């Protein structure tokens, strides 16, 4: 213990008297750690950003479409049959893993306000749609269940529709005409932007499903209860599969399907739809992060190595002298180890601060949330990595090679035979380091 504290004193003093060398060595570590942290933080920020965009579709949502219709041997593709109904949608939330289910009818219509008109998509649905799709109302209010029950002519507009029809006028309370029928605008939806597939999610009008069916879109079948699709929401993201299974079972039962018969509907969840996209994206992102991080690690590492080489070469005499006055191999090693660890820790801490500062600046500029706990965890692990790596650098090959180099130089100039004075020390250093 006494020897260790003595070694630490020696090492700290050695670092202190050679401030420039210590600072330069540390700089390499600082830059390396900072680069890794900044790239990791910025990368995870970008990743988060894209995931947010994907989540904007609505979280944990599952879409149920009617099955395909086969007409004279020609299969029409999914969604053409009319097998889903509003009562299906009402029953689905009784399943334990499903929180909500909303029926949807869809159609296009020309919308008129004053002398402006605009073609858009009409969704007839229930108020629960806003929660399922994670929508909110920017001004005015959403229509209510009562509006649905009494088929009131009220409309909730998307931002694109508002700007196309109204310009600067406040649309709430105004009257628009859809298929020549007056509707009162009760609210405007918060803008949602593009979907990951490039659709404008704001170019939409929401109507009570009853109104839409009776006045605007009409029904495709004799069954007045029929709907085009049902969108439902699982209680949490890890209940999606269970919710999907329950929905399938319930619908098969309600549709009186025999075990031999195929489903007359199809269930898809958003995760599934975007899963492929997201996996390939995360894969590329991780690869890129790893590449950038390893480049900065390599660059930083080479920087440190160079300084170490120069430093050890410069200090061959110091090592020799210390050994001549009684330092044991262990003493020299401990001194260098303490120096390396001290520099690594100090440089690592400075690097963390610098890296966090850099990513904070980037998050300001790009409006990303980059500094996360993940980044800090990574920082700590890279600090440990640096501490051990530079310890190895100091005690691995470089000192030996440099001592050998020194020796080769001496051989060339023929000084070796004249001054064998340092030979044993170089030998000792080579053997010990």
């Amino acid at each position, binding site marked *: 213990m006494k020897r260790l504290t003595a070694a630490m004193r*020696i090492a700290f003093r050695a670092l202190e008297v050679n401030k420039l060398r210590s600072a330069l060595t540390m700089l390499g570590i600082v830059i390396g750690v900072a680069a890794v942290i900044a790239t990791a933080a910025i990368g995870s920020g970008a990743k988060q950003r894209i995931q947010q965009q994907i989540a904007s579709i609505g979280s944990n949502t599952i879409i149920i479409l009617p099955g395909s219709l086969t007409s004279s041997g020609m299969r029409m593709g999914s969604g053409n049959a009319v097998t889903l109904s509003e009562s299906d949608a009402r029953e689905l939330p009784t399943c334990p893993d499903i929180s909500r289910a909303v029926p949807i009818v869809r159609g296009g219509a020309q919308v008129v306000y004053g002398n402006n008109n605009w073609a858009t998509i009409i969704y007839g649905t229930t108020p629960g749609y806003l929660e399922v799709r994670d929508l909110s109302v920017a001004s005015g209010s959403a229509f209510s269940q009562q509006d649905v029950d009494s088929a009131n002519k009220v409309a909730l507009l998307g931002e694109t529709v508002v700007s196309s029809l109204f310009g600067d006028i406040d649309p709430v309370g105004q009257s628009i005409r859809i298929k020549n029928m007056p509707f009162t605008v009760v609210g405007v939806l918060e803008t949602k932007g593009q979907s990951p597939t490039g659709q404008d999610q704001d170019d939409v009008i929401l109507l009570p499903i009853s109104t839409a069916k009776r006045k605007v879109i009409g029904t495709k079948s004799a069954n007045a209860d029929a709907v085009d699709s049902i969108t439902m929401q699982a209680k949490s993201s890890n209940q999606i599969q269970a919710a999907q299974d329950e929905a399938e079972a319930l619908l098969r039962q309600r549709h009186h399907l025999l075990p031999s018969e195929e489903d007359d509907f199809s269930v898809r969840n958003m995760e599934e739809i975007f899963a492929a996209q997201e996996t390939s994206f995360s894969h590329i992102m991780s690869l890129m992060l790893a590449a950038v991080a390893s480049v900065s690690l390599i660059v930083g590492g080479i920087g440190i190595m160079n300084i170490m080489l120069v430093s050890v070469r410069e200090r061959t005499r110091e090592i020799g002298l210390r050994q001549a*006055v009684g*330092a044991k191999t262990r003493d020299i090693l401990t001194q260098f180890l303490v120096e390396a660890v001290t520099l690594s820790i100090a440089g690592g801490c400075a690097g963390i601060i610098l890296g966090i500062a850099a990513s904070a600046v980037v998050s300001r500029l790009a409006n990303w949330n980059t500094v996360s706990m993940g980044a800090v965890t990574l920082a700590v692990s890279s600090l440990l990595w640096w501490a051990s790596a530079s310890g190895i650098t100091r005690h691995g090959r470089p000192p030996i090679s440099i001592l050998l180099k020194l020796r080769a130089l001496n051989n060339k100039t023929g000084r*070796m035979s004249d001054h*064998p004075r340092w030979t044993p020390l170089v030998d000792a250093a080579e053997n010990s380091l």
Partner: protein
Amino acid sequence: MPALIETDRLTKTYQLGEVTVNALQGVTVTIERGSFVAIMGASGSGKSTLMNLLGCLDRPTSGRYWLDGVPVERLDRDQLAEIRNQKIGFVFQNFNLLSRMSAMENVQLPLLYATTDTGDADERAKRVLVLVGLAGREHSLLTQLSGGQQQRIAIARALINEPEILLADEPTGQLDSRTSAEIMAIFQQLNRTRGITLIVVTHSDEVARFAKRIITFRDGQIVGDNTGSIHQADRAQSSYAAAEASP
């Protein structure tokens, strides 16, 4: 009581690429406590190699070496380090001081590696600095000191663990003749008053005159071993006096 240094047919062979250099070819020598020995010879004659062996910096290829009765060639690396720390003080031609540290820190360097309790380090450093005539310069930086003063610090460093032997390799090689005489005077003083055994490797006859015994080397072998006459000692004394007298 055995002789302080006793060697038996020491040899040392260096391998330099494909060339084998027989730096020492069977050196048998005995040096008593309290001697003042100069080792002389041309470059490459093996005198520095012998110095390395006597100073436990290196091990012989063959032969035996007893230091204070201890067979050194049987000791391991750490034991050699301890002997260098406790029994031997080194003085080099180029001083070998740590340039960014103060005089005091340089002098105390061997204490850092001492395994025994060294007491008050500052007190000891001051004491040896007084011995070499540098009282009051404890906190000087090396850059503020002349070559002669730096060599005095090196001597103080060699003395701090109270060694029995002082090994000096061309200690005046980088100093002018007056400073050389001063340094040699310090050595002589230490030898006479404190009984420290002194072994000095040198080219210079001037330096060698201070010694009581001169061993001459050629081609790795001892070719001359003269115990200095009264006459030589007188001459050494007079040149010391001359150095003292000059301003």
